């Protein structure tokens, strides 16, 4: 395999991985935007999204099959279900804490993360759950480069969700309200915006995106377990910070950059895959030193 082919392959790998990171990072960044909370339970909502998607697919696969059609439907159901769970968590755990010191709500988020992880641990007995689908191994050959259909569908779906989100944020009434709430809660209230409802909508949308990523990851990789949200939660948070936390295009960009960094980090001559995380996180430190607000983060107050 020549170097250029390897680079092309790693580019594809990075895009797929980056799409997952970006979808999860979007939720991080949106929630941070409206209530300035680093929602550490976000990775676990991705995990719950995977399991709900799995249950939904098991329930409907008899009718719609378990190809991409069935997975899309299961993903939609998981987005709605887990989106509602996200709102419920916000109402129960975060809402009463909105005016408490920032540290208290951060610790609440860690607690929610542990509650979700341990609930799924108890329900599954810590066992890996195989996510059976009818996805094949097929794909197309672009010269020496092989791209599977699954990879194409994945990246296209993630891109579709991001375009939809962008439209929602910039062209709908709720999206405009969300951006306004991100700037100033009190002013929004004076303008007649129901801030509390907008926070709920933000949690729903952010969590639904994580659930979509969780379902797709489960179907694509073929297995689920209670701890699968931890590492991706951490990576998505990193992606959000690289892009500039609070910035939606920043989260998309950050996710893709981190995915690509990890893929190429495996390939640096002389150092093996054991060092790929060192490489990726060294870049994170570099970005923060040179541009503390992240690549697309703005230094002024607006953060959406």
């Amino acid at each position, binding site marked *: 395999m020549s170097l250029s082919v390897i680079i092309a392959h790693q580019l594809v790998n990075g895009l797929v991985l980056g799409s997952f990171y970006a979808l999860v990072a979007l939720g991080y960044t949106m929630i941070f935007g409206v209530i300035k909370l680093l929602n550490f339970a976000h990775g676990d909502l991705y995990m719950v999204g995977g399991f709900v998607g799995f249950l939904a697919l098991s329930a409907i696969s008899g009718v719609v099959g378990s190809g991409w059609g069935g997975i899309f439907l299961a993903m939609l159901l998981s987005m709605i279900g887990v989106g509602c769970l996200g709102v419920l968590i916000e109402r129960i755990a975060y809402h009463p804490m909105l005016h408490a010191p920032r540290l208290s709500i951060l610790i609440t988020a860690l607690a929610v993360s542990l509650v979700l992880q341990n609930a799924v641990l108890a329900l599954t007995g810590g066992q890996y759950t*195989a996510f059976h689908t009818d996805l094949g191994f097929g794909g197309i050959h672009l010269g020496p480069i092989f791209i599977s259909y699954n990879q194409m569908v994945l990246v296209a779906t993630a891109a579709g969700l991001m375009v939809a989100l962008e439209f929602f944020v910039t062209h709908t009434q709720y999206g405009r309200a969300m951006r306004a709430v991100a700037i100033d809660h009190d002013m929004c209230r004076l303008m007649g915006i129901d801030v509390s409802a907008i926070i709920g909508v933000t949690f729903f949308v952010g969590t639904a995106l994580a659930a979509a990523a969780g379902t797709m990851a489960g179907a694509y990789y073929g*297995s689920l377990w209670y701890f699968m949200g931890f590492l991706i939660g951490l990576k998505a948070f990193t992606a959000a910070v690289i892009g500039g936390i609070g910035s939606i295009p920043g989260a998309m960009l950050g996710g893709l950059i981190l995915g690509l960094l990890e*893929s190429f980090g495996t390939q640096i001559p002389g150092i093996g895959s054991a060092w790929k995380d060192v490489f990726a996180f060294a870049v994170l430190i570099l970005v923060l030193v040179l541009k503390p607000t992240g690549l697309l983060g703005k230094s002024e107050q607006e953060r959406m």
Partner: protein
Amino acid sequence: MKHFTRVLAAGALLAMAGGASAQAQGTLKVGVEVPTTGSEATYGQDMYNAAAIARDEINAHGGVLGKKIQLIVGDDACDPQQAVNAASKLVSQKVVAVVGGYCSGATVPVLKIYGDAHIPFVITAANSTALIPANPGNAFLINSTGDQQAITAVKFFQHKKIKTLAIVNEGDAYSQNLADLMRTAWQKAGGKVVDFETVNKGEQDYSSVVTAIDAKHPDAVFWTAYYADGGLLIRQLRQSGYQGMIAVGDGSNSVKLFDIAGKAAEGVYAFSNPIAQFLPAAKSFIATYKKEYKAEPGPYAPLTYDGMQLLVWAMKKAGTTNAAAVEKALASANGVHWLTGPIAFTKKNTLARSNFVVLEGKNGAWIAAK
């Protein structure tokens, strides 16, 4: 301290005296140290069942030295502290020998107790290399240690005409150790390690490592860690179009590998401890076990059965239950074999060969590889 040794010496004398009195009653007490409670209880119970089958067979053939064997269970609960209590209890009950030892962590601290009491100890499952330096000389390991898995793997790869190898581990002590042992053994045998990769545990996406492996075109990929992530790696390797051999270490020999990897695990090879269903000599043992206990024998049942048989063989050879004579006979065991193959020991009392068997994935289950 001096007092303590004296007490132990007295205990040893008592143990010998007990042997003498047992002779008078016509029974020989043999201790079985296994976890029968706690997280590993199923394995321990299974080992005890196997020892009981051996006892029944030996007694049906007239016992040993004219006496019947009586088993006494010492429950170590896979816990070092409880293991010490269980061992002291066995010593005070005057057993002439002990078989068992499942958890290495619980087996290391009892070595000294049996050593001080002069009781031969045949270890039938525990196989950490930490047992070797802790052995006062009275313990014999009949299960292979990790370095021997590498020897089995090298032989198998050579047999399959593999020239280049990619080794993937997960960066934890167990899998990294096996990967390093494998790399050394393979290079010593004249093979080439074209790629040596480390992945993160629980990271679902191994595509970048898969691309790196693909680029080196290895004849075989060897995964040294556990089945859950191994299943994902195998799946992604096959998805990317890798067509060479894939082999996995004993941490991945679970049938759950097929659940996660699906069709991709067909034709994957695994190295494993001798499991009854793959041992040609174990047919009647399996039948007896199923009849007695209404279940399949577990992974360490054949080894424990062999441990009992080996012990009795040594006592017969020595013509006495005297510890020194039995230990000498055990050390001289050469080519004696029952279910798991020939048993002979190195100078360090470890099994002189690798007892690892090679399995192949077929239709979602393991079969013995050719």
